[in-house]
């Protein structure tokens, strides 16, 4: 964990996490509240450092609270995707045969539909709220971990120590949880960075299209609002846009750093 990318990524993520945690302290109350004159330019009013939007809502408050939503969606989606993917992958890999075939065809079915369309369809049918959006994005994100875990499990289950565990009479579930899974997980964790970054972007895109949860601030909805006034008040789109760039870049760099560190440890070990 000494690569410059990793450190830069870590700094960005820590900064964003700090923003997310500080948001309710610095800007208590509803970040969607109307607090000033509409379309105040940034850096003109000390009370509203980043100005206000079309209705007079504080852009800085939106940025901070938006970080909460984005990080929450990113992490929650990763959790959902990893949990579902690992479960399906492990079962498929260990069970083999018909079970394996059936589960992998289900994975294929989800993979051939573009993830964003899947999320779009799911949200427009069920209605937008944060848990639904997380589920919708997770719906397409779990297939990557599932395939990876299955591949790892297939190779690990033939190892001698797994065979030994079986021979001494361990329950298949115990074999899976104590012997196979811990060794199959590290490469999957490297995938987390990609899932988080994708989830943040998909959530922003959904909100941009008006399919986000309208009762919470998200960067995507802020950009969508700002788009109408792009020519007169470009900062309304740029501020949340920069937030998105920082998040995705931070997560990606951190992921790279972690992967490097793990590869290094493996090489040394």
């Amino acid at each position: 964990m000494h690569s410059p990318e990793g450190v830069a990524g870590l700094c960005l993520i820590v900064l964003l996490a700090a923003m997310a945690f500080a948001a309710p302290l610095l800007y208590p109350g509803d970040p969607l509240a109307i607090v000033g004159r509409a379309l105040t330019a940034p850096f003109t009013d000390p009370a509203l450092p980043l100005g206000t939007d079309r209705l007079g809502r504080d852009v800085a408050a939106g940025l901070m609270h938006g970080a909460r939503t984005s990080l929450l969606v990113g992490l929650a989606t990763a959790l959902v995707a990893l949990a579902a993917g690992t479960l399906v992958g492990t079962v498929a890999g260990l069970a083999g045969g018909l079970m394996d075939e059936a589960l992998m065809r289900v994975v294929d079915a989800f993979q051939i539909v573009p993830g964003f369309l899947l999320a779009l369809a799911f949200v427009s049918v069920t209605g937008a709220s944060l848990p639904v959006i997380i589920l919708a994005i997770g719906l397409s994100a779990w297939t990557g971990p599932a395939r990876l875990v299955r591949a790892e499990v297939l190779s690990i289950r033939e190892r001698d120590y797994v065979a030994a565990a079986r021979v001494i009479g361990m329950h298949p579930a115990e074999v899976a949880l104590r012997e196979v899974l811990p060794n199959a997980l590290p490469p999957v964790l490297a995938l987390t960075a990609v899932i988080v970054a994708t989830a943040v972007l998909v959530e922003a895109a959904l909100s941009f299209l008006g399919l986000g949860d309208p009762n919470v601030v998200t960067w995507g909805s802020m950009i969508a609002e700002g788009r109408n006034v792009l020519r007169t008040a470009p900062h309304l789109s740029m501020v949340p846009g920069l937030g998105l760039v920082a998040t995705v870049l931070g997560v990606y760099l951190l992921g790279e750093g972690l992967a490097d560190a793990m590869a290094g440890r493996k090489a040394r070990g």
Partner: protein
Amino acid sequence: MTGFLISRRNLFLGTGALMTAALPMARAWAEDAPRGGRLVVAADSEPRSLNPAIVASNGVFFIASKVVEPLAEAMLDGEGGLAPRLATSWEGSEDGLSITFKLREGVTWHDGEPLTSADVAFSAMEVWKPLQNLGRVVFANLDTVETPDAHTAIFRFSAPTPIQLIRNALPVVTSVLPKHLYEGTDIAANPANKAPVGTGPFKFAEHRPGEYYRLTRNDAYWGEGLPKLDEIIFRVLPDRAAAGSALEAGEIQLAAFSQVPLVDLERIAKVPGLKVVTEGYEALTYQLVVEINHRNEILADRKVRQALSHAIDRDFVVDTVFLGYAQAATGPVPQNAPQFYNPDVKPYSFDIEGANRLLDEAGYPRGEDGKRFSLRLLPAPFFSETRQFGDYLRQALGKVGIDVTLVNNDTPAHLKAVYTDHDFDIAVGSPVFRGDPAISTTILVQSGIPDGVPFSNQGGYANAELDTIIDQATETIDTEARTALYNDFQRIVVEDLPLINVAEWGFTTVASDTVLNVGNNPRWAVSNWADTALSR
């Protein structure tokens, strides 16, 4: 006659005296408006049908009104607010049971056939009355249309029908279709619905989906020296932000219906060669309303509804959401409809304390967390303004202790949720006032309307007194008595608040300076554009 109107509009800034003096000169100027040229206009949607006789909506009229003409068009200084088109005169009988139209002679359809009273009779009996969204209401009591000669049509009604209503409805509901193309076919599926044949100043030439509609000059048009333009192209630009850039780049010369977002108007007005025109929408007033589901027992309490109305700062909505391009509403009839507007209705002031008091009185005190009760709000997705007002309303009601959850839907889902499933507490809507309350306004509060009729009373509101007034007014022939009934109607609606009127707005047109005669009648954007011209 059209010349008169043009001059009036263009000399708008002159004083009355100056205008009168300038009239002959101005008329000469208008007739001199150059002929020829191609006008490229932004179109923000591609209506599935271009038949205004079936779908009388602004989206269809915007393109089809240049091809298919009504019996009369709205006009600022015309007699009864009308300018003759396919009819030259109309007269109601004393008993209100018949109206006689004299039709213009020498008018031919775009395929060369002559226009006769049989076309009008066919349109009325086979299309307007049974098929048209608004004609169903206006012509509900129409029995037969007699055609004693080729240029006379006598409409006979089974119950007294006010001539005032028919007059006000003429521009919107009476687009005449060619009988020889529609008779004996499935009218709703006729190919002429997509490639209309009419009598208007422009012929329909082609539609390339996703690209453009092309209309060409009708050389056999009945109006002398009209139309001025050779061709009109409606370029499909669904992205509202794109219209402004296209205007600046000179790719299009005109964008109507506020296609250029209000926030960009100030900037674009300063661009040399472009002008912002706010006239031409006087008879197309949109109303911003809060629709209420009276099935919710909290909202069934009048005091709660009044509190809601007091909690809304209408000036803020006008200034911030509409950037001043709107007017605060006082009731269900907009102020720019002087025929019907009742100036005595008492508007609701912005009064947070009053709202809080009313809610306390109604028995909904604030809870521990400062909240009284929760409501689901469905803002209509039709305009960015309706959505923005939804955002504002959530904040405004939060201030008086009402916890509001926004539910965003796309258009089909919104229509279904509000008008069919009644799955809402409050909704933001944008009905249109079309010159007479009986056309599309009373339906917003009348009871007994079947589920699924969009833009009607689907909130379960029923008020016998109001229903009686509405029924009476549809059969009152005497104009004064009818207006008095509608004054009562406004008073009761404002008092009892079946819905809350917040603001009323028209649209803006942005056009190149070379486009002449823009916005010179109260329905300009959806009129026939025969006198619209391009200077060189």
